[in-house]
């Protein structure tokens, strides 16, 4: 098992290298001259040319790429064109906010999604099941930005219970986490339900009942553990999606996270920040995937026996 984990960590190296190549190439072929952007529209062509030479922008593609990777290995992600801060520092400022928000959203969606899914499966075709699945469909169909605005309207403007924007306290996290968590919860509820339904008809569930086990334990101890593989996969995917794609939510609630920072950076052609952000998101996704894969082995001993 330890060997498997180590191998998986080593395998992340080529993956991350691939990501650097793609990110760098994408930025390379994007039109627009960074030197011109930094100096502004009024800069003289001489000044722009001088800056281009200083920044090494005139060097060939491969030279620039290797310089990028070499700097990266030293932890140098470049300098933010806008704030002149190292990109690394900017990421450190924003990433914790994104992680906090995503983690909170995952907790919210897991609690809502799993409980709805499990009860729906246990009571298939009941009133509860029908209502829960209707809610799940709605949760899935509602666009994030619309739902965020709606929550803001109700809880901030009308009721005045929660702040509408900013990110300074736990209270600030509730509405954005709900916004992000709802659609995930909807996906999870449907996934949990269908996965549970597949398992609930299995013979070993009848065996557990025939032993005299209580229905609660039959569902939770016998059925749920077996239904968990697709559920864990979905939770991992949702967490990854929220780490990288909380752009809309972060923009609506004015949360200084990676998503918002990247959107701003793309608009300003602030290449180093975009590159740094994408790399960070790719890295966190790889880690989430690794954790999910390791969890598989703890849930299902048959998978563990293959991890040698």
């Amino acid at each position, binding site marked *: 098992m330890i060997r498997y984990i180590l191998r998986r960590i080593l395998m992340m190296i080529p993956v991350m290298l691939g990501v650097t190549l793609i990110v760098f190439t994408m930025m390379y072929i994007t039109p627009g001259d960074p030197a011109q952007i930094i100096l502004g529209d009024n800069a003289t062509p001489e000044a722009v040319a001088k800056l281009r030479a200083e920044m090494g922008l005139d060097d060939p593609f491969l030279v620039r790429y290797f310089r990028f990777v070499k700097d990266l290995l030293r932890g140098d992600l470049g300098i933010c064109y806008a704030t002149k801060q190292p990109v690394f520092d900017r990421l450190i400022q924003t990433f914790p906010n994104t992680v906090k928000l995503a983690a909170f959203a995952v907790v919210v969606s897991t609690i809502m999604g799993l409980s709805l899914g499990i009860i729906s499966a246990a009571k298939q075709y009941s009133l509860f099941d029908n209502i829960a699945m209707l809610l799940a469909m709605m949760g899935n169909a509602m666009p994030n930005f619309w739902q965020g605005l709606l929550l803001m309207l109700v809880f901030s403007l009308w009721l005045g219970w929660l702040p509408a924007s900013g990110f300074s306290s736990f209270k600030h996290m509730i509405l954005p986490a709900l916004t992000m968590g709802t659609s995930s919860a909807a996906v999870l509820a449907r996934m949990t339900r269908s996965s549970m339904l597949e398992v609930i008809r299995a*013979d*070993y569930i*009848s065996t557990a009942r*025939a*032993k*005299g*086990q209580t229905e609660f334990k039959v569902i939770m101890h*016998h059925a749920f553990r*077996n239904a968990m593989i697709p559920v864990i996969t979905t939770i991992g995917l949702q967490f990854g999606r929220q780490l990288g794609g909380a752009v809309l939510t972060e923009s609506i609630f004015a949360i200084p996270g990676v998503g918002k920072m990247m959107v701003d950076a793309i608009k300003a052609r602030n290449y180093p920040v975009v590159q740094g952000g994408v790399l960070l998101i790719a890295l966190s996704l790889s880690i989430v995937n690794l954790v999910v894969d390791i969890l598989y082995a703890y*849930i299902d001993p048959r998978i563990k026996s293959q991890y040698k």
Partner: protein
Amino acid sequence: MSQQEKLLEIKNLTVHYETVDGTVRAVENLNLSVGAGQTLGLVGETGAGKTTTVKTIMRILPVPPSVIKSGEIFFKGEDLLKKTEKEMRSIRGAKISMIFQDPMTSLNPVLTVGEQIMEAIGLHNRVSKRKAIELAEEMLETVGIKGDRLSDYPHQFSGGMKQRVVIAMALACNPQLLIADEPTTALDVTIQAQVLELMQRLKRQYKTSLIMITHDLGIVAEICDYVAIMYAGQIVEYGSLEDIFLHAQHPYTKGLFSCIPDLYSDDKELIPIPGLMPDPSNLPSGCRFHTRCQYSFDRCEIQEPPSVEVSPGHHVKCFFAVPEKGEPQGTPLGRPV
């Protein structure tokens, strides 16, 4: 068999499945009994209602769609159908256990076999964990598996070994009645013999009564004391092993026997029963077997034949059933075709 000796007695049991596509009459007016220490073979084609019957005894049929329309199931004189869910839980696994058809799927793949055997023990006995482990180890040894394999997972066992584990689990609380739903169908023939031998040995050792569901008449001949032949939700013939094997009267039972190859006969071809089991949501009128019966005549289509006791304890549900002594009870109205 007197009332005292009967461990289990099913009276007029009717179970339907009510679905949007219609009502499936899975079991109708079924009467059965099993004496203490005896083995009853429940024989019939797939879809005859065998599994529905035994799952009703355990009360583990999903509700909905299943509905118990009528009947009583007396276990040691008490009606199981009147018990609360909580009372049933203390009976399941402790007094009545069940073994399912496919050992590959009847063990939970994510729990060790030890956990699964200990679960059965822990549910019905107040024992310490250490004692439970000890008992589980003992059970494994009893079925011929080394006790130290307690911490192994089901996928680490072969099919035959898994069925042994299932048997160990079912017998862990020393039940009075064991229901085995085709316990050897999914196994190789050589393993089948071992598992059957094991079940018979344990049945004697623990003095357990057994209901054996099977469609293998060879297994019936080997281990059963009584046999019930089921067709389309009804028992068409019931009697002792000898009654069924030597004096079968129902055309369906006879048909089943003619499907078995006979080593000592020169006939090269087997004679299958023509046609298929009727659709249980659209059963034929009269005798349910008349559509496939070579002896059927007009009355069979109109009227359901009564169950006739042709000799003590030997019941046949057919108009042609002739008691050993006396007149045929269901005299045909017309001539057989």
